[in-house]
């Protein structure tokens, strides 16, 4: 054994060195997405590009890229070009996300940090940006704390809080499907706060919870929970899991025929998940955080869809693409209005700033709330379609668009105590 090791083509030291080198690759030079001009405004995107959230992270990146290119074509921010840096935060490793955030702030000197899809990673990154005094926009991490108990002067969020999601759809589910609800909830921060929101709504409406199945994140087999859920005989089975868990769960629900015996519905649903399901699994009433097809004519929407199709191999924008797009445009607008890229000045302007039609791309008023830095965005309520209507990716029928003002709890109820620096 010893002899073989010594005479082998690859000895241990070489291997360990090679391993170390591979390990360092992610920390080497970031991939520079667009760079022009002398002193560009730097935006760092620290978001998942690998792992479970790779697909949604990729879409947020595409949205950011489109906005950066549009802005650069019109002269950038305050006459300076924008440079977008992108790093892979991984889907679940807070250590990596924080390390990348520190690197982008300390070495790359970014003016704005963007991320993360994963709520836990977003919270961890917010600690860093707050400590460094760098402006930070969270495009798509939903847990309440980010603009609630953990809110910070430099942190803004584009997507809904879980409470907003629950408030947007629960009354309709109650009215349509009945009062006995059974939940399948992912067992982490996002799932817990989303469940709490739904339960609070259900109690207020006078309904009952027949059970709440807390499922480990990334579980592949839902059969044991589905057996329990059906035995409890609820009026509606509420599916709160997300991403691939959602795909697995709905696929198994449809194979077991449960959707033919109990109503199946939920809160947040994403086009990325629906596209990954076979047609028979596309059932139920849900909410989308943004949708690419709207009944009434929306200024700028067609152009946005066409621009994104060009960049994503013909695919339509999802809510995630829109999150990325809004993040960059909102920042640029605030800088222009504040006539500065200083974090404090931009943060003050961004609070209570209303988004123009070509950025919000939806009917209701959309604005950042000064009190908690939460974007008041609309929720799109409707039903899944089994087959695309007019377009293979038109898989959702929007019945109602509910404004953020009506779904968000008052700032005083969020637990946020905002301390703006003077």
């Amino acid at each position, binding site marked *: *054994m010893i002899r*073989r*090791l010594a005479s*082998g*083509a*690859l000895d241990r030291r070489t*291997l360990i060195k090679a*391993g170390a080198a*591979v390990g360092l690759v992610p920390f080497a030079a970031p991939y520079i997405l667009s760079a022009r001009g002398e002193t560009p405004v730097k935006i760092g995107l620290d978001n998942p590009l*690998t*792992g*479970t959230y*790779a*697909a949604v*992270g*990729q879409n947020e990146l595409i949205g950011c890229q489109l906005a950066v290119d549009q802005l650069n074509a019109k002269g950038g921010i305050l006459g300076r070009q924008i440079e977008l840096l992108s790093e892979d935060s991984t889907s679940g490793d807070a250590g990596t996300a924080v390390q990348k955030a520190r690197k982008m702030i300390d070495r790359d000197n970014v003016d704005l940090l963007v991320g993360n899809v994963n709520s836990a990673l977003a919270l961890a990154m917010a600690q860093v940006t707050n400590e460094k005094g760098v402006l930070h926009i969270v495009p798509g991490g939903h847990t309440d704390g980010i603009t609630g108990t953990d809110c910070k002067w430099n942190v803004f969020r584009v997507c809904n809080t879980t409470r907003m999601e629950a408030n947007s759809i629960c009354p309709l589910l109650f009215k349509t499907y009945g009062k006995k609800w059974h939940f399948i909830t992912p*067992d982490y921060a996002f799932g817990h706060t989303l469940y709490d929101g739904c339960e609070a709504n259900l109690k207020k409406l006078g309904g009952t919870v027949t059970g709440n*199945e*807390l*499922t*480990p994140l*990334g*579980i*592949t*087999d839902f*059969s*044991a*929970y*589905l*057996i*329990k859920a*059906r*035995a409890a005989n609820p009026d509606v089975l509420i599916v709160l899991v997300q991403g*691939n868990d959602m*795909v*697995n769960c709905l*696929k*198994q629900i*449809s*194979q*077991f*025929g*449960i959707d033919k*015996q109990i109503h199946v519905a939920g809160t947040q649903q994403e086009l*990325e*998940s629906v*596209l*990954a*399901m*076979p*047609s*028979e699994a596309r059932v139920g009433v849900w909410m989308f955080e943004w949708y690419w097809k709207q009944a009434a004519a929306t200024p700028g929407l067609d152009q946005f869809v066409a621009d994104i199709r060009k960049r994503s191999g013909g*695919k339509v924008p999802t809510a995630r693409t829109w999150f990325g797009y809004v993040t960059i445009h909102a920042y640029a607008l605030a800088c222009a209005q504040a006539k500065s890229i200083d974090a404090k000045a931009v943060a003050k302007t961004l609070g209570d700033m209303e988004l123009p039609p070509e950025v919000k791309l939806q009917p209701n008023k959309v604005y950042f709330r000064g009190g908690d830095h939460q974007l008041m965005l609309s929720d799109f309520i409707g039903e899944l379609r089994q087959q695309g209507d007019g377009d293979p990716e038109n898989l959702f029928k929007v019945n109602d668009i509910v404004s953020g003002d009506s779904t968000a709890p008052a700032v005083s109820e969020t637990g946020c105590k905002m301390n703006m620096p003077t």
Partner: protein
Amino acid sequence: MLQLIFFNITNGLIVGAFYALMAIGLSLILNLSNVINFAHGGFLVIGAYLAYTLTPYLGFWGALIVAPFLTAMIGLIVERLLIRRLYGRDPLYSLLLTFGLAFIIEDGTRQIWGAQGLPFSVPQALASPLSYEFFFITGYRMFMVAMVAIVVGLLFVLLRYTRIGVRIRAGTLDLETVASLGVNVHALRSLNFAVGIFLAGLGGVLAAGQLGLEPTMGDGLLMPSFIAIIVGGVGSLTGTLLGGLLIGVAAGVTAVIFPSASDAVMYVMMAIVLLVRPRGLLGEEGMMT
């Protein structure tokens, strides 16, 4: 309550049969070549995606047959080019190699087929429950269990009654003696690896019927397979089969009593087995009989 537990034991056996299929492939490779194949989940993903690509041309049934063979071919190439170089070294080396391979396969899949998950349907004839009462027993799941039973049965016959099988079993016990008797150990290991990867590919196609198709889909299935081997006993294929079924049932029953622990219960079982009987339930002689 009693009915719920009965349902979940039955259901656990179905889930466990699938874990066993994955685990037996892993176990084959581990036993003969001392390679802890961390890329097994990756090969499962390759099998699933190949089936997705082939289905429009060959249909589900054609893909079910062809995709595992293609996966095994890829496995064979990987073995010839990479894994072979590390035989005879500490298993840590091949563990590191396959660990890296797992990442390469995941990202490679993402490059070729995209990060966005893809829809994969099973034939209509299998996609519904057999009875109203036992709704969790669908045609597809029964088909899966039957496939696992057939493949495992064939494998056991192969290992017990054919010359190659006898050599693989002998090699598991003492490879040097087998080599000194004039058996081409290189070819034997290649073939054995390919059979293991074939099982991963088959597992991938079967899993794609129930799970969403995306580059990380193998991750969630790899750990239960390792646990099945450890619980059942390293070196024993019967043990691996038993280990797979046991953790399937344990996870099912725990889901009734304490749902959020249904994942953790597998690890608890593993810890208990390691404390009480470190070689695993049937891992006595390192032989499969």
